[in-house]
């Protein structure tokens, strides 16, 4: 499994918003990768930078005020950040596609579903005949489980329910067989029974078409059910990364642990929920030390002084916390300290 190629690699990405009230580092030296055919989850609370990360990959960060100020985004061997806008336009949709949280606002209300589906195809498959394009559009709508696909082609977005619109969005994102699908909170606006339908669809498509999925969510339940690996973000940084099984069995970062404990569990009732004290800091407000120190139960002197790096707990597990830096000084060649587990 681990020999699968890394399809998309985000290296040391920095995205900063330049506002009147100063520079806001929304994404601060973020590293992660997505392998072929895998579902990677990025989880975190609002303002942690997970959406800006995904927009940075697609280079859709509103500019100004946003700007990617450093790092690399490697798709295969190529750095997407070095591409021109014209080249990016070919990559978006064909190699890397994206679906958004609000299926209502990401479809154009003035055009039929068919019209919008066909536009997406004709942009990338310039040599196809009209018939081929229409057939492909209908085929995709059927693939995502829309009943009466031919009729839906002639309908407008307002005639569909939220779940159906999200299916249309997924169909549209997949028309050109992208290798990576970025899904930014795809089920947050949907009801649980519809969410279950959409998640099932995404898992099936992942298996059938071998599309890698980068799933951005705030819901740990969705992560547990869907993802193979998880990246946890807090205040613009990756603070923990591990396979899903591992992160729920052995969460290392105090924030991850707190987050898992704060979710009311449907299976057994606790008298009192665990809660992390305080609020998520505003991006850029913590100048020194660990960004979680103010809310952390295990914080000690060093946490207020130095910023921790990602320490390895095992081959597949890393945590940005000094608790895992017991043997300070054992440094591997890539500059990361290791802890024997």
């Amino acid at each position, binding site marked *: 499994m681990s020999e699968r190629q890394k399809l998309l690699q985000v290296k040391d990405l920095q995205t900063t918003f330049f506002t009147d009230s100063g520079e806001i580092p929304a994404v601060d030296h973020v590293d992660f990768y997505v392998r072929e055919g895998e579902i990677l989850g990025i989880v975190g609370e609002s303002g942690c930078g997970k959406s800006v990360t995904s927009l940075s990959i697609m280079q859709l960060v509103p500019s100004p005020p946003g700007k990617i100020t450093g790092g690399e985004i490697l798709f295969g061997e190529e750095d997407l950040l070095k591409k021109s806008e014209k080249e990016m336009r070919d990559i978006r949709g064909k190699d890397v596609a994206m679906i958004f949280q609000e299926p209502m606002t990401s479809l154009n209300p003035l055009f039929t579903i068919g019209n919008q589906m066909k536009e997406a195809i004709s942009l990338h498959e310039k040599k196809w005949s009209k018939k081929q394009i229409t057939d492909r559009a209908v085929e995709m709508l059927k693939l995502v489980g829309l009943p009466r696909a031919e009729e839906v082609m002639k309908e407008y977005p307002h005639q569909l329910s939220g779940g159906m619109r999200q299916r249309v969005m997924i169909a549209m994102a997949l028309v050109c067989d992208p290798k990576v699908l970025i899904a930014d909170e795809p089920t947050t606006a949907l009801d649980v029974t519809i969410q279950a339908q959409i998640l099932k669809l995404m898992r099936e498509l992942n298996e059938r078409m071998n599309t890698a999925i980068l799933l951005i969510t705030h819901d740990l339940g969705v992560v*547990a059910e869907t993802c193979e690996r998880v990246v946890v973000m807090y205040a613009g940084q990756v603070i923990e990364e591990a396979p899903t099984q591992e992160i729920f069995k052995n969460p290392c970062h105090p924030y991850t642990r707190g987050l898992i404990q704060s979710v009311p569990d449907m299976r057994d009732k606790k008298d009192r929920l665990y809660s*992390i004290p305080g609020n998520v800091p505003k991006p850029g407000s913590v100048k020194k030390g660990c960004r979680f120190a103010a809310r952390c139960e295990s914080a000690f002197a060093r946490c207020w002084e130095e910023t921790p790096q990602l320490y390895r707990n095992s081959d597949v597990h890393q945590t940005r916390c000094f608790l895992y830096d017991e043997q300070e000084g054992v440094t591997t060649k890539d500059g990361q300290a290791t802890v024997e587990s």
Partner: protein
Amino acid sequence: MDKPLLKVEGLKKYFPIRKGIIGKTVGHVKAIDDISFHVNEGETLGIVGESGCGKSTTGRTIMRLLEPTEGVVEFQGRDLTSMSANEIRKVRRDIQMVFQDPYASLNPRHTIGKILEEPLLVHGVSNAKERREKVIEFLKIVGLSEYHAKRYPHQFSGGQRQRIGIARALMTNPKLIIADEPVSALDVSIQAQVLNLMQDLQKEFNLTYIFIAHDLGVVRHISNRVAVMYLGKIVEITESEELYANPLHPYTQALLSAVPVPDPNYKKEQIIIEGDMPSPANPPSGCAFHTRCPFKMDVCTKITPVLAEEKTGHSVACHLYTAEGNDDIERQKQLEGSV
């Protein structure tokens, strides 16, 4: 403790659908369609359901923020639906509401102090010093500080704003608080803080809650009893432990199985129901859930099942548990036997 504080009987709220220039009524959206339940003193009743099921309308109709079409709402033995506007304003001192969106429910031009003082003014606390003291007292109770009274809503985070919303509801020493999705706009870590606060306040002030939410985990955590709504009707109501351990209605079963559990090793039987919720303007005949139900029988399309007690304290509206339904199951068995 087990005395009903609020009794709702046969409550209906229909919204007219108007068409044309003269606004002729061409039909009704049956947002809530004949629901009955009670809330005991000191308990928390959770109301769950998906968007459009009528759970928020229920809360607003009880408060008479919306005029009910039909039915009785009895609060401490008095019928709210027949009260004059003046009388209902006095009763609202005892029934307060906490809203979902802490961004939209606080006036951006008023300081927190003024926002919290308002309910006291309305309900006749004329001494300014007394009002100010009470504001500070309640700010502290919900975990904020005195200096926050001078600030404006935009200076607070979502979690803090929801604390302010809760403080405002508490200002008049209410008996019943109707909380409409109070934590669904908040992040998980903040959500846990607000839920804990609400539980502490309940003990301290002997409050009764109606907790409206779509998140089944949250509802289970905070509620003593839970009512499940679907398309304007209560389909199941029982003790919260019982509902999660032993759901009877196929919709409740599907709803429970659809919630993602934060544990990758947890294997559950997933019942994924097909399709979407039908429009409440044009509900299906018979049982409203029959279009999506995996156990649909002939009788379900014809007769609307009524909410009836299946076990002590556990009521369900489903033909799997009615006489008509049993007849249908028998018939089905015979039919299969003869083939």
